[in-house]
């Protein structure tokens, strides 16, 4: 049976999150100390060689991203921690910040040193005011100890906009604007917050950094899947026995996640589908459960690892109904900046409502597939591009459920 490997959550339950001395006694801030004894290039190279890829869903090599900002010439640079966890079914960043906030601050400070930034922001979702309190206390303790040196960190609160998980929308929000994504390029590592080079990484990504610095890139690169090494925190929801969070190496399979860690399906029922990566993820049928959860293996089956949410549905669930609910979510969360998303999410929800009410026609299925295909290519940001995925993957793997509901 597969076992958990706690790297990001190494201090979970072992330290008092609100006592920085506990963190330091557990080996905390050694990574920052080591980084500062190295050249900036060497720090970036170490992160790059570890193979750590962004844990927010896009999966970009963290060291490579840092190098863009390091090379950019500017009087100011920024480090931004994306703590706007809003992907339904996901609460991994909350678990990290509630239980080991200093690891996030240390990761940000290492990034700050590497790229030459003295200012960091944590953009924490508005639904987590209790996490904001923890972060502010942790920052105050780190400042009092002087352990961050000349690197300053400030917490900013989001306010319930899913789209602000997209890095350029998040930047707009920190600037005090509506959280609409920007046209790219320029990308944030070159031109981000207040037009300065900006690294935006997810909470889980930053929490990985201190231990990579401490134990080295070879150690990290040897854990889990080769192309997406390390661990991933997954949050299990829906009709699974254990609704809990786990941290596992990235070469564990979906089946192991659901049955070994999740304890299987509730009430002895049978498995029907699992949606991984949050509400924008694809639906996965039984036949694909032996896929490894790493980024590339998931991509190869038309699914995503995304945020690591694992939403399990048993044999009694009406997938057309669940997908209609999801399509309403995207209509609500579309920021309205680009037409394919603004209009597309609305029409998709309309058609899904009709289908779910038993009033759909066979034509609707073709139209919805065409619309989804256009949106996945034409929308400005990841929100609109991923929005059709639950509809398209349920049509692909569970088309009979739609057919049974046609009027």
């Amino acid at each position: 049976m597969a076992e958990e490997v706690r790297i990001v959550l190494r201090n979970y339950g072992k330290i008092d999150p609100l006592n920085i001395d506990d963190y330091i006694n557990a080996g905390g801030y050694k990574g920052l100390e080591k980084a500062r004894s190295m050249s900036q290039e060497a720090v970036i190279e170490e992160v790059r060689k570890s193979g750590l890829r962004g844990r927010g869903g896009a999966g970009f090599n963290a060291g490579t991203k840092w190098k863009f900002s390091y090379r950019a010439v500017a009087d100011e640079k920024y480090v931004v921690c994306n703590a706007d966890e809003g992907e339904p079914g996901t609460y991994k960043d909350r678990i990290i910040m509630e239980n080991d906030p200093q690891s996030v601050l240390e990761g940000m400070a290492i990034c700050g040193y590497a790229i030459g930034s003295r200012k960091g922001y944590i953009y924490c979702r508005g639904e987590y005011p209790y996490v904001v309190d923890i972060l502010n206390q942790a920052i105050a303790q780190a400042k009092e100890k002087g352990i961050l040196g000349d690197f300053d960190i400030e917490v900013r609160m989001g306010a319930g906009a899913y789209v602000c998980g997209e890095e350029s929308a998040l930047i707009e929000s920190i600037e005090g604007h509506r959280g609409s994504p920007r046209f790219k390029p320029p990308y944030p590592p070159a031109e981000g917050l207040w037009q300065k080079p900006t690294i935006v990484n997810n909470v889980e990504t930053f929490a990985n950094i201190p231990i990579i610095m401490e134990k080295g890139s070879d150690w990290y690169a040897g854990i889990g899947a080769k192309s997406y090494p390390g661990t991933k925190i997954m949050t299990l929801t829906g009709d699974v026995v254990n609704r809990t969070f786990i941290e596992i190496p990235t070469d564990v399979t979906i089946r192991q996640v659901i049955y070994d860690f999740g304890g299987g399906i509730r009430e002895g029922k049978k498995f029907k589908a699992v949606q991984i990566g949050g509400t924008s993820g694809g639906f996965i049928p039984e036949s694909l459960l032996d896929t490894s959860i790493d980024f590339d293996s998931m991509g190869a089956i038309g699914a995503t690892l995304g945020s690591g949410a694992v939403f399990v549905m048993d044999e009694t669930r009406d997938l057309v109904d669940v997908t209609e609910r999801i399509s309403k979510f995207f209509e609500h969360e579309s920021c309205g900046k680009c037409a394919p998303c603004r209009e597309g999410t609305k029409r998709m929800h309309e058609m899904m409502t009709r289908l779910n009410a038993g009033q759909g026609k066979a034509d609707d299925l073709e139209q919805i597939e065409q619309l989804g295909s256009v949106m996945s290519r034409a929308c400005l940001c990841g929100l609109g591009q991923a929005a059709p995925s639950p509809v398209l993957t349920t049509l692909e793997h569970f088309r009979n459920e739609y057919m049974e509901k046609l009027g």
Partner: protein
Amino acid sequence: MSDYAKIISPYKDLPGGIIEAYHALQNKYNYIPEDAIAVAADMFDISLSQAYGVATFYSYFKIGPRGRYVIRICESAPCHVAGADDVIAALEKELGISMGETTEDGKFTLEFAECVGQCQGTPVITINSQPYVNVEPEKVGEILAACK
């Protein structure tokens, strides 16, 4: 200085601070008073439409009065399959109002929310941002009674 200006003023010189100012207003009143938006526009030196545009973009902000206890019910997919609709029905019945409304005494407001990140215990509701997990329709009366 008006009360609104006093609340906004600590954020006035903070780059991009208008969202923090709106949070501060909402912490104080449980909503953003409409008149405060004009004060914010003035203090941050932006147009009224820009200040209004920011306030209305974010669904966590609510312009105009709502109850002392704001109950938000998550309707994202994991809560949906866990029976959020039954919780909604129980809350509506208990309070005698529909989703989006406020009780006549100004005590409770019912609102929809998307995921609030407490998915280990679906279905989830929040009351003034405090999460309540594994909410069953039968428990709704007890939870409301604790709101004094």
